[in-house]
């Protein structure tokens, strides 16, 4: 865990790691697509043209058209925006709430609050996640924001647990004792010494959760509980494509590939980061 992502040799090593580079390029591709979509899409993704529905891919419409005659490529671009935004915020929520909880629990190991936090985590873990997400969206209604809440809730215990476990092992380190001898309190030690040293782990887990969140968003959208039309969403595009799969396979294939490639990219990147951060694999450095 001694890797320091800011230094030069880290960058050099990262560039020499094929999985990381592939993952990074793939995920970056979709992030860029999403960003570009704010400024430009080849066609208006909300513009219907029923007469040309289900058109197969062509030079004009690279990914063909959907059942309303909308340009699939443009929809996938805007859909990337939704997927990425939902996943990003959901994971962010999970981290923002989960990490402090985990750090707090670790700092007060064995206390009632620790016990309470951990049991709360058990509870969330014990719930069938997709079901609870469905219930949450049933309570609050479908929509991107509620999808975020539903996915975010399950990220809280993931990060709380991870942060607690990693923090506990750091609390026994001598440099933490040294900080205590220097009179620092638990909160300050958590912020100053623990958090930066578990950041790598959190980043790695973050990318993995990010990819899981994209899959979860797709699943929710697929059952109709994600972002609402006219905002395109990959999961809903798949749901729309479902009955047409034998008639217009392109409608199912492209959004499917978009999901697979993004998730694959994120996972490869996460794995790559894990390797890069792992001191066991780093030679010639402290």
């Amino acid at each position, binding site marked *: 865990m001694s890797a320091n992502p800011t230094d030069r040799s880290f960058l050099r090593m990262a560039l020499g790691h094929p999985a990381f580079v592939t993952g990074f390029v793939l995920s970056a591709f979709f992030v860029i697509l999403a960003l570009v979509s704010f400024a430009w899409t080849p066609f208006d993704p909300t513009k219907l043209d029923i007469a040309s529905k289900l058109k197969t891919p062509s030079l004009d419409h690279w990914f063909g058209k959907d059942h309303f005659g909308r340009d699939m490529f443009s929809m996938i671009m805007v859909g990337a925006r939704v997927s990425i935004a939902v996943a990003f915020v959901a994971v962010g929520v999970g981290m923002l709430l989960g990490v402090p909880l985990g750090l707090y629990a670790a700092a007060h190991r064995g206390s009632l609050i620790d016990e309470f936090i951990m049991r709360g985590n058990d509870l969330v873990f*014990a719930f069938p996640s997709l079901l609870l997400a469905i219930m949450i969206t049933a309570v609050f209604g479908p929509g991107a924001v509620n999808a975020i809440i539903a996915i975010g809730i399950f990220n809280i215990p993931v990060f709380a647990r991870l942060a607690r476990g990693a923090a506990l092992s750091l609390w026994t380190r001598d440099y933490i004792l040294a900080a205590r001898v220097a009179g620092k309190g638990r909160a300050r030690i958590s912020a100053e010494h623990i958090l930066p040293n578990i950041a790598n782990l959190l980043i790695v887990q973050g990318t993995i959760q990010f990819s899981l969140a994209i899959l979860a968003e797709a699943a929710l959208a697929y059952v109709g509980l994600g972002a609402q039309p006219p905002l395109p969403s990959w999961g809903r595009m798949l749901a729309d494509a479902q009955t047409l799969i034998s008639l217009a396979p392109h409608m199912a294939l492209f959004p499917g590939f978009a999901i697979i490639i993004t998730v694959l990219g994120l996972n490869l990147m996460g794995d790559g980061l894990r390797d890069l951060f792992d001191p066991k694999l780093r030679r010639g450095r402290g």
Partner: protein
Amino acid sequence: MTAYLLRRFLSLSLSLVAASLVIFLVMEVVPGDPASFMMGINADPAAVVALRTQLGLDDPLPLRYLSWVAGLLQGDFGVSYTYRVPVSELISERVAISLPLTLYALALSTLIAFPAGILAAAKRNSAADVSVMGATQLGVAIPNFWFAMILVLVFAINLRWFSAGGFPGWEAGFWPAIKALTLPAIALALPQASILARVMRSSLIDTLDEDFMRTARAKGLSRGQALRRHALRNALIPVLTIIGLQFSFLLAGGIIIENVFYLPGLGRLVFQAITQRDLIVVRSVVILLVFAVIVVTFLVDLAYAAADPRLRRRRA
């Protein structure tokens, strides 16, 4: 160890109580009235009121919670609003599909994952490792409902090797039933197998790096012997955790797959019950699933103890 297990069991039971409260309250705030749903769009308001009374929906909240819990404790899950049959009957019919499906998928995923993970770990960084890991990356990335759609397209619609879904019932015989569960099980197993293979690999690699593996080699065991006799059992512990998690995930997580293959399983029962506001079914099934998760977690703890003698003494 027994003390540890007992404590764990107690705290898990507490979770169960908390879960029952959460689930009850969530279902209470879900908008939508089961009675109006059942009576439909042109229903007479008086008829709806009559039905509400008949279903006991107008009783005070705490009373309904307590009577539900009291019922649960006696194994009485109540009567479904929509189906008007005992929930336990509904559940047992559905479990007869979901449970075998889960076990089938789990067996498939284990059968694929173990050899793949072991191969990849034993031949670390070889072409075999790289391709197994590449395949698992892909397996994790494919949304299972999409995969299911493709399976149906290829194997049911085009090749017609399997029926597109449905379940003939166990009374139709073992093989027809298994055949009906095969495509769904494959769709469910693919991502799970990928995850499991990855865990198996990394856990095994960690174990292979342990000092005692070097000791074993120094005794004259070949690489393969050392792996079989010393690494596998030690590597199994994290794998067990994942299998436990997967079991619970699959039991409830089959909703979408059950929909694609129109299997009358537990997941679809709750999903449908949610849309029909059959609160009593939703509550009972969810609490049952939570219970299953808890039992499985507990069993995994026991399995740990079996796999690792250190735990029989110490607390984990």
